[in-house]
């Protein structure tokens, strides 16, 4: 018989679906909450691929361990090391599983899974399905979830918005026993009991106004958990994707796979050269990344590519026609090859810009893309405990650890991916653990699915074994109080409609717009102490204005304005955590680049920032705690900028 106990999953992207499948498969009832039909979750936007060691790369000297090592150096050693090792060890098996689910991975002539090159690696280790890999993976998991839903094992709650985690008990005993959620159509607010709650709610791109994120990526859900007492780790680590298409409503992603398949980034070598790109001869083009990073070329990690493009445009004023744009050029490639490998994204570019990238170089600029930071989580380390951290691992070196499950993390330990609140888990992008200070391309899909599959087991074990009072038996007053809190917030917002002073400063969309502008300019590619201080005071002003916000719609039915306005308040709070952690991290590491502290400072800041919401002041308290390392020793992260490029070849020598 199935358990009486239930698990709530909030968010229906890759992490949420993978978790739902895993928990349902273990025979436990799942309630899956999502603001959109799960098939429309933001994971659908991921384009490039999913990383995993594979047989071809293995014979060239690559290994799961090197994938692990790359992820750490990519993340500038801010990652929690054990979960990353476990994740990279699982990666090939996850690909196999997705393959079995029917994901149409591209195939070689012989019918094997095709591979492509991606940032931060010299090996082809990225599996892909055209240029819509995220879509394909999401659909595969969506299909499996639908199967469980059809069997009654997963209860779909689509168009429900998460409002608050219900926490019973105080301090050490605090435990998550359910959630408050609102039906976005009927506006009904209701509590739901659960013995564990998995947050798989993604990132917070909307805090930065225009980003590559979907409109649902407000970070609202994470912010609500944060305000309810969950800690938020490495908030300041925001990835700005180097190649996006600037647009009026958002910046659309142009996948890293465009560079992985041979795309080259350049600007006219002569400032103010107004010729058409095709008329500019090869020797009058400045290939920014190839010249500055001969070893990795266009495939340096994202933070580096972003900063260099930013530098060329903003500092040197060499952007195309003086604008903040550079060329991403694929026109030297075979158009048919491009259609097969990148068709999806090239069509998108053509639809939105009007030029065919097969024949005209694309015009791109960096845009906010991913939050490495997220809810702080913990775990139980696995079997691999080296006496001393390994230093300077190179391809072909003896691999110090096996790939069987349980080396990095103890699989099924109750606290894996659990936040500081017992029973409240964070999976996927909203889990801060994996990507450190920069995420490598094609690692996000991996971390999301890994969280669901691996740590879904932890949730099941926790619910079955921890011995807590079942949520079903907890006093109703706990749930009623939480509903009342949210109903009051909701009613107050509704009431504000009637204020109607018409003051533009109190318009929620205006507040959100100013929040985005401020966060984007102060807390993304290049940060300074003074800029962040200014940003924090601006946020104070916005918070003050928000307290008097006037809603434009007083409807009791499908009130989107209300939902948006509510999340604006939550976005300001997350924005503050991001800016404050950025201000206090007086160093440069990965995506976090401070002009006033341009060097990495391992003595002071080889630490994760942990933001805790101070309910009495309404502000964030940030402290720094040691990174959970011990497997790999720190080393500089330069991607060959200073090294000689001689001897570094794209294709490493085979194993023979």
């Amino acid at each position, binding site marked *: 018989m199935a358990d009486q106990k239930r698990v709530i999953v909030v968010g229906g992207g890759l992490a949420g679906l993978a978790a739902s499948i895993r928990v349902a498969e273990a025979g436990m009832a799942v309630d899956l909450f999502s603001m959109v039909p799960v098939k429309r979750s933001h994971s659908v*936007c991921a384009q490039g691929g999913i990383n995993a060691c594979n047989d071809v790369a293995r014979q060239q000297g690559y290994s799961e361990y090197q994938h692990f090592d790359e992820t750490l150096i990519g993340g500038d050693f801010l990652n929690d090391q054990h979960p990353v090792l476990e994740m990279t060890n699982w990666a090939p098996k996850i690909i196999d599983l997705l393959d079995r*689910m029917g994901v149409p991975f591209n195939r*070689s002539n012989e019918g094997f899974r095709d591979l492509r090159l991606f940032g931060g690696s010299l090996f082809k280790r990225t599996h892909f399905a055209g240029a819509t890999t995220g879509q394909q993976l999401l659909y595969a998991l969506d299909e499996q979830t639908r199967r469980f839903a059809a069997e009654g094992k997963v209860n779909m709650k689509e168009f429900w918005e998460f409002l608050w985690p219900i926490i019973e008990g105080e301090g050490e005993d605090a435990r998550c026993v359910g959630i408050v959620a609102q039906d976005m159509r009927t506006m009904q607010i209701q509590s739901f009991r659960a013995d564990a709650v998995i947050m798989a709610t993604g990132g917070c791109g909307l805090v930065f106004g225009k980003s590559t994120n979907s409109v649902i990526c407000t970070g609202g859900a994470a912010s609500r958990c944060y305000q309810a007492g969950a800690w938020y780790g490495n908030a300041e680590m925001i990835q700005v994707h180097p190649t996006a298409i600037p647009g009026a409503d*958002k910046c659309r992603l142009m996948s890293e796979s465009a560079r992985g398949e041979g795309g080259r980034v350049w600007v006219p070598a002569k400032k103010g050269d107004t010729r058409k790109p095709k008329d500019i001869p090869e020797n009058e083009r400045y290939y920014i990344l190839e010249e500055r990073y001969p070893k990795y070329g266009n495939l340096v990690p994202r933070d580096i590519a972003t900063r260099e493009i930013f530098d060329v445009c903003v500092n040197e004023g060499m952007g195309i026609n003086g604008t903040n744009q550079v060329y991403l050029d694929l026109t030297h490639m075979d158009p048919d090859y491009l259609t097969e490998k990148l068709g999806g994204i090239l069509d998108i570019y053509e639809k939105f810009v009007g030029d065919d990238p097969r024949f005209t170089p694309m015009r791109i600029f960096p845009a906010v893309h991913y939050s490495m930071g997220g809810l702080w989580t913990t775990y139980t380390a696995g079997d691999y405990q080296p006496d001393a951290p390994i230093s300077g691992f190179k391809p072909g070196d003896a691999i110090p650890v096996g790939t069987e499950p349980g080396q990095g993390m103890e699989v099924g330990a109750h606290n894996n991916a659990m936040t500081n609140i017992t029973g409240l888990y964070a999976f996927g992008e909203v889990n801060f653990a994996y990507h450190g200070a920069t995420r490598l391309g094609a690692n996000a899909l991996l971390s999301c699915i890994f969280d669901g599959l691996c740590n879904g087991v932890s949730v099941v074990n926790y619910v079955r074994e921890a011995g807590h009072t079942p949520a079903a038996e907890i006093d109703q007053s706990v749930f009623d109080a939480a509903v009342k809190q949210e109903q009051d917030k909701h009613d107050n917002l509704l009431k504000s409609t009637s204020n109607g002073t018409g003051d533009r400063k109190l318009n929620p969309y*205006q507040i959100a717009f100013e929040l985005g502008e401020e966060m984007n300019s102060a807390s993304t590619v290049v940060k300074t102490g003074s800029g962040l201080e200014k940003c924090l005071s601006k946020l104070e002003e916005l918070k003050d204005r928000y307290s008097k916000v006037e809603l434009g719609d007083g409807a009791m039915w499908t009130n989107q304005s209300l939902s948006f306005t509510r999340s604006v308040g939550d976005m300001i709070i997350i924005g503050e955590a991001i800016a404050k952690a950025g201000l206090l991290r007086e160093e440069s590491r990965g995506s976090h680049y401070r002009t006033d502290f341009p060097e990495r400072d391992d003595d002071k800041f080889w630490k994760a920032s942990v933001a805790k919401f101070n309910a009495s002041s309404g502000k964030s308290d940030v402290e720094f705690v040691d990174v959970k390392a011990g497997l790999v020793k720190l080393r500089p992260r330069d991607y060959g900028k200073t090294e000689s490029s001689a001897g570094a070849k794209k294709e490493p020598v085979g194993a023979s």
Partner: protein
Amino acid sequence: MSEAEAYSYDADMRKANRKQAVEGRSVIFKIKRCDGPGKSTRWESFKIPIETGANVISSLNWIAANPVTVEGTKTTPVVWDSSCLEEVCGACTMVINGRVRQSCSCLIDEYAPKDGDVMTLEPMSKFPVIRDLWVDRQRLFSNLTRVKGWVPIDGTYNMGAGPKESHEQQQMRYALSECMSCGCCLEACPQFTKEEDESQWDSSFVGAHAISQARYFNEHETGKQLKDERMDALSGAGGINDCGNAQNCVKVCPKGIPLTESIGAIGRSATMHAIKQFFQGKK
């Protein structure tokens, strides 16, 4: 210009419009509004300044921040469904100038290049309206369950790689897998009609979307195991035979999915399925 010319011509027209788009213009948006199920509908017009690269989404955003009609009446922000804004999630589908498409990829320059041009926005007509431009497309997902749209794997434990697949087969399946369940093919289909009674869904026309998905799973080595069940579902009322071959589906599909080929292929499977059943004498 009538918006109902042939598709390719329409594309040319949009391209031409884009070239002659006037900067600094304003465009009138006529929007069909409805406060909720069972409520009456009304039209409201908004005059919106068009910035470079503006699309329907940015225009609706503008209205949300300035909800005042051309007559100067204050109104509520328009409600609509959206998510990715990259034409890959399918959420923001609506009827624009009489034809269904995604609103995110609908650039104003292509539809209203001159000052004072009018654009009309309506909710999809084949699904019940929740509010304004937001419709309930649950039936579309329910149809995926109806055709058992999944690969029946044994479980999520590690059991090695999936079946090997040829390059050609992958390319064929990939084309089908890009379907984002937006519902354009259903909105444009004369055989797919609005059905609010959920109990009728399983016997009403299933539409190109689910037919194509059934083919997608029939083409997978493991997915094949459910082929008979899928063909049972698609042979019955509201199945493949209800298709009238108007072929609008393939014209309006934003992802260029070969829907009519899927319909032919499922038609063939249904024929073979019936012959097989007849001679095996199972039913």
